[in-house]
C-alpha cells in the first residue's frame, strides 16, 4: 500500500516510526520539541515520546553536535538538528575533528550512530546566512556520510537508513522541498546509501542533479524533449558514498555530462563529481562536462539578484543546448 504525502510528512513519519522501533533514538535541537520544528518536521514527537527523548535545546550548536557524539558513543542513537545548515559552522570542530575521526583515532573502538539533520538551500529572500549548502565540505571529510534526498520516498527510506547506521550521517533536507509530494509505501523500508536513481531516461545528455535541482533538471528535460533532445536525469541521493557507476553507465550512452547543484560553483560538489568522472571515464566524454551551479556570491536578499544566483531550469536548458550545439 502506498499513499501520497509531502517530504515534510515523510520525514515526520520516518522519525516517529524509528522512535517507536528503537528506544535509544533521541532528538535534540532548537525548537524541535513543543514547537515541532519551525517547518513542522518534528510535530507530535514531543507529545508522543516525551521530554527525555525529544529535547529542546538552548542555542548551543557546538554542544548539541558534540553531545550527540557523546551520546552515540555510549549507546544512544541521537539525531541532532541544526535549523539552517549554514550554522553547522558553529559545531564544525565537533563534527569534523571529533565525530568524523573518533572511531578511527581510537582504533575502531567507538561506534558513532548519529544523524545531523539540517535544511539546506536558498530562495525566499533569506539572504547570505540562511541559504547555503555545504555538502562539498563534508564530502571532503573522511568518516562522514552525506545524504541529500529530494522525494518523499527517498527521504523516508534514507532517514531510516541514517538512523540505523552506525556511522555519522549528515542528512540535508532542502527547505524549499518540504512540500514536494510523492508516493510512500506503508510498509517499513530502508534505502541503501550510494545508489543513484535514474529519474528520466534519455540518450543525448546526462544530467546529474543534486537535491532540489533534480526537479529543475526534470522540468528542463521535459521542455528539451519537446525540442527533440533527450536528457537522462540522475539523482544520486547520497553525496558520500556516491554512485559513479550509474553515472558512467549513462555516459556510455550520452557522452555528455552536466552536473547541477545549488551550492556555489567554486570547489563545489560538481567539481568533485567532474574530477571523478574524467578520471574514471575520460574516454566516454565527447565534450567537457559542464557545471550549472550557484554563482560564487554570498546570497543577496533582493529577489531579482537572488534569482540570478540560484541555478534555474532555464540555465540547465541553456547549458544542454550549448552542449548539443
Amino acid at each position, binding site marked *: 500500500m502506498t499513499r501520497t504525502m509531502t517530504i515534510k510528512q515523510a520525514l515526520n513519519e520516518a522519525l516517529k516510526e524509528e522512535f517507536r522501533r528503537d528506544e535509544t533514538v533521541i532528538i535534540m535541537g532548537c525548537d524541535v520539541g513543543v514547537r515541532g520544528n519551525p517547518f513542522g518536521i518534528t510535530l507530535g514527537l514531543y507529545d508522543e515520546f516525551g521530554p527525555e527523548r525529544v529535547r529542546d535545546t538552548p542555542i548551543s550548536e557546538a554542544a548539541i553536535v558534540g553531545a550527540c557524539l557523546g551520546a552515540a558513543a555510549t549507546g544512544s542513537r541521537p539525531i541532532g538538528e541544526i535549523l539552517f545548515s549554514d550554522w553547522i559552522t558553529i559545531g564544525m570542530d565537533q563534527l569534523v575533528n571529533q565525530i568524523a575521526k573518533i572511531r578511527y583515532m581510537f582504533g575502531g573502538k567507538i561506534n558513532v550512530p548519529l544523524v545531523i539533520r539540517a535544511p539546506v538551500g536558498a530562495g525566499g529572500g533569506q539572504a547570505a546566512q540562511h541559504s547555503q549548502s555545504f555538502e562539498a565540505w563534508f564530502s571532503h571529510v573522511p568518516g562522514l556520510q552525506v545524504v541529500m534526498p529530494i522525494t518523499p520516498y527517498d527521504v523516508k527510506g534514507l532517514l531510516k537508513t541514517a538512523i540505523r547506521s552506525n556511522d555519522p550521517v549528515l542528512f540535508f533536507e532542502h527547505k524549499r522541498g518540504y512540500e514536494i509530494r510523492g508516493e510512500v509505501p506503508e510498509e517499513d523500508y530502508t534505502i541503501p546509501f550510494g545508489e543513484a536513481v535514474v529519474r528520466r531516461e534519455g540518450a543525448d545528455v546526462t544530467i546529474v542533479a543534486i537535491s532540489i535541482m533534480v526537479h529543475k533538471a526534470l522540468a528542463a528535460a521535459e521542455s528539451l524533449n519537446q525540442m527533440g533532445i533527450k536528457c537522462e536525469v540522475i539523482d544520486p541521493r547520497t553525496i558520500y558514498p556516491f554512485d559513479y557507476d550509474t553515472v558512467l553507465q549513462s555516459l556510455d550512452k550520452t557522452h555528455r555530462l552536466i552536473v547541477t547543484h545549488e551550492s556555489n560553483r567554486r570547489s563545489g560538489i560538481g567539481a568533485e563529481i567532474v574530477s571523478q568522472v574524467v578520471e574514471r571515464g575520460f574516454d566516454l566524454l565527447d565534450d567537457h562536462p559542464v557545471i550549472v551551479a550557484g554563482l560564487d556570491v554570498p546570497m543577496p536578499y533582493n*529577489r531579482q539578484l537572488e534569482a540570478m544566483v540560484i541555478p534555474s531550469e532555464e540555465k540547465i536548458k541553456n547549458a544542454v543546448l550549448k552542449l548539443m550545439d
Partner: protein
Amino acid sequence: MAKTSFVTMEETLAAIEDYKREIMQPLTAPEGLSGDQILKMYRRMALIREFDTSVKGLWKQNYIYGLAHSYVCAEAIGVGACAALRDSDFITSTHRGHGHTIAKGGDVKKMMAELMGKYDGYCLGKGGSMHIAAVDEGMLGATGIVGSGMPIAVGAALSSKVLGKDNVVVCFHGDGGTNQGVWHESINLAATWDLPVIFLCENNQWAISLPYKKASKNPRVSDRAIGYGIPGVTVDGFNVFAVYNAVAKAVERARSGNGPTLIEAKYYRYIGHFVADDERYRDMATNAPWTAFDPVERMCRFLVENGGFSEEQVQAVYESAKQEVLDAIEYAKTAPEPPLSSLYDGIYSPEFMEILKSRGEYVL
C-alpha cells in the same frame, strides 16, 4: 495553543509578580537629560513602534521579502542604551536590528528601502531585515546567527583601545544568545583585556519556543558576570530610563578604561517571534498580562504625567514619527530596484573586484 506548553497562565502571573517585585523600576527622568533629549528618546521609541508595526503588514502584502523580526515591546532597551552613547560610538545588533538602527539614529527611509530590497536601502538591497546595518551611524549590523555579533563588538572595542580612540561599543544580544559559545569567549576576552564594551542582554525570556528557564538553570543572566570578574546588573527592560542609567554608568566605566559591564534588561516578548510566527508553542493568552508594561505607552504616560509635557505635545511627537514611517514606506515602494549589474559589487573590495574582472571572473 500547543497541546504542551512550557509556561502556564499561572506561571505567567507569578512571573509578573516577580517582575514587579524584583525588576520593575519607577520611570523617572535621569539627571542631566534635557526635555528635548527626553522627547527625542520618545520619538525614537515611537518610530520603532510604528516602523515595526508596519513591517508585518508589508510583509504579508509581499512588499517585504524574507523574514523580519520586530523590536516592538523592546523599544525602551535600544533607545535607552543609545541615548547614553555618542554618535561616534558603535553598536552591534541581533536579528532584531530595526530597533537598534533607529535607536542609533538610523534613517527609516533607507531602512524601509532595504527591507523592500531596494537599491537605496542601507545595504543596496543585499542584506534585508536580517542584515540591516547603518555603518555610518555606528550601527555595525544585524546578523541572522544568534550570538554571532558578540566577538565583532569585542573587536570594535579592541580597535578603539589599540588605535587610541575613546569609542565604546554596545553589544546587544538576546537571552537565547547567552548560551552560545562565542558569548562566553567574547565576554571573557573583553573582561581580561578591559575593553570598552557593554554587553547588553535583551532578556525577553524566550528564544522562539524555549523559555529562558528551560535554557539555563540560573534565570539571572547578570549573575554570570561574577565568573568574568566584571560588574553585572539586571534592570527593568520596559523602562527606558532604567536602561539609560545602567548603560550610562557602564559607558563611563568603559570609556575610562575599566572594561566591560554585563547588563541584563529584562522584559517580555508578548508578540510573535517574527512576522510569520503562529506562536503554536505557547498559550497566546499569556501574552496579554504583559502588555500592561508596554514601554511606549509607559513613556507616553510619564511624559504627560511627570515629564512636564502636554498631551498634545506628546501626541504630536508620536504623530510625526508615524508620518515619518508612512513617508518611508511610500519612498521605499517607489525606490528603484538594484540594477542587475550590481550583483557582484561588494563581494570583495572595489580594487580587488577590478582585478578579478580583468581576469575574466565575476563578469556578468
